[in-house]
């Protein structure tokens, strides 16, 4: 059974037919929400809300306008934005702590670097952070990101480039500190 048929079945009242859709997209949605919100547990809760909301308004999904995954990511994006409004906003001026890893092995040093990158990701402006996560972690094509965000492809590219530039700058700064 293909995805469109599955969706039709759910709309016709076959509740159980929704489960394969959840199973197919749960990893992407949890990962997206967890990375965007910077918290795995909150990400999972939001992901649950995303699927529940998707189920409730499944009849409004129009396959002619977008893929099911794009539609689902749009719901996830909006839910995450709402959740971020509730959460304490991480200051954009907050710089990552400097690593003084004189005696750390490469593996541990990398882990520390990644932890700092995680922090740096959370300090990015929301639009840049979302565009970066969609492109780099979810591997979504630019046109789909543009559709989800409701902007032009050029805007998406520019947001991703700005995010990468900031993350590279953080990495360079951390790298200098470790040498």
């Amino acid at each position, binding site marked *: 059974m293909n995805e469109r048929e599955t969706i039709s079945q759910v709309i016709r009242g076959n*509740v159980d037919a929704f489960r394969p859709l959840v199973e197919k997209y*749960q990893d992407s949605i949890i990962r997206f929400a967890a990375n965007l919100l910077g918290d795995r547990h909150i990400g999972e809760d939001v992901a649950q809300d995303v699927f*529940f909301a998707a189920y409730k308004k499944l009849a409004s999904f129009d396959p002619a306008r977008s893929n099911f995954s794009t539609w689902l990511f749009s719901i996830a994006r909006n839910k995450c934005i709402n959740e971020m409004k509730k959460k304490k906003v991480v200051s954009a001026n907050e710089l990552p702590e400097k690593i003084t890893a004189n005696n750390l092995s490469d593996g541990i040093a*990398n882990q520390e670097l990644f932890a700092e990158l995680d922090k740096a990701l959370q300090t990015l402006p929301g639009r840049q952070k979302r565009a970066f996560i969609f492109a*780099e972690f979810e591997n979504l094509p630019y046109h789909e990101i543009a559709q989800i965000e409701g902007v032009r492809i050029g805007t998406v590219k520019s947001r991703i480039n700005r995010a*990468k530039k900031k993350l590279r700058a953080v*990495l360079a700064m951390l790298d200098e500190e470790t040498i």
Partner: protein
Amino acid sequence: MNTEELLKLWTDTKLQINQERDFSSKVMSRIYRYEEQRRKPLFDISRLVEIATSNPLAKAAVIVGGAAIGVLRIVFLLRTFLWC
């Protein structure tokens, strides 16, 4: 390792996710509960009682409604006796 390689390595680690056990079951049980609630008839007495006892606003509405009916009954009674 240069900056680009580190960035790539970091994004690769972010792709890995430890799948939460029973995530889909949790979502589905929430949906089943929702469907159960939705399919209950609107004027089910037990549901009305449930709503009235669980929601403070509904409780207040029931009390105000009861008080209004009581006052009206007294007014009608008095009117009947006084006009006879």
